[in-house]
């Protein structure tokens, strides 16, 4: 089994993080802006206002992207260098990262269904787009490993 290329993982993770962070920004700051404001007012909270909070969420996006690439690199020898492999890695990250996390928040009555559903759908779209980009960037130099794994 081939070794993981950590430089590529970090670089592709950074790119996936950029896709995730751009999607999250558009989704939560523009599309769901009013819904978040209403939800935060009900909870007597202020929401994301400080630069430090914005920075922390940005870093979280990069971390999510990097872990997705790591997972893609880990399952690559078994599933092969196909788009399906990248999409599976994205789905595997979306279930605990978005689906289960937001489901709990919804069931506890903290967030309304609209915010939860759109956040889940948006998160899935971000992760799938990021994973497809990751496949192109990571597989670029891993073709030797990929060629041997493609027959599985």
């Amino acid at each position, binding site marked *: 089994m081939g070794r993981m*290329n950590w*430089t*590529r993982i970090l*670089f592709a993770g950074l*790119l996936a993080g*950029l*896709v995730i*962070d*751009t999607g999250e*920004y*558009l989704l939560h*700051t*523009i*599309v769901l*802006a*009013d819904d978040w404001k209403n939800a935060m007012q009900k909870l007597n909270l202020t929401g994301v206002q400080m630069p430090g909070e*914005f920075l922390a969420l940005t870093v979280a996006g990069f971390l999510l992207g990097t872990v997705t690439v790591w997972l893609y690199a880990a399952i690559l020898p078994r599933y092969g260098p196909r788009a399906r492999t990248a999409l599976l890695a994205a789905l595997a990250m979306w279930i605990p990262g978005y689906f289960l996390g937001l489901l709990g928040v919804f069931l506890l009555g903290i967030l309304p269904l609209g915010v939860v559903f759109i956040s889940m759908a948006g998160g899935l779209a971000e992760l799938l787009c990021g994973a497809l*980009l990751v496949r*192109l*960037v990571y597989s*670029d*130099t891993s073709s030797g490993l990929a060629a041997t794994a493609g027959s599985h």
Partner: protein
Amino acid sequence: MREIGIILIAAFAIDRIVTGMFYLLSFNADLRATLDPDSLSDPSARAAAAKLYRLVYSVCAGYLGIVIVAGVMGIRLSKIAAIPLDSSLGPVMGNALDVLVTGLLLVGGADRLAEALKLFGGDIKPAKEPIEITGKVVLEQSLAKVDPS
């Protein structure tokens, strides 16, 4: 004129940041093929790497254009050009379109500026594209003469 100046400066800054970051990262052997396609000798591999480079460049410039410039810094097309947002689209779609179009303009501007800077800098390399030959090859096999003895 002021609006064009702001967009040009922002696009120039984005292009310089992304190009500078890629230049530094291209010293790494694992990333050189992706971030410096000209370093590849094989023409078909270079063409594929150039395509990937453009995609990676667009993602990085897109993030800077949409999130940092249009979002955090608040430099938006509707503001600098004093264009009122279409109220029929609603506040959400209007804002989203404003940010997306501003980001697109900045990414496109950065890309075009990068081309223009190459022209002014005289750093023009002739494109080496793989030679492609099309046609038919006909193979004829003459029958060997059979010696009757």
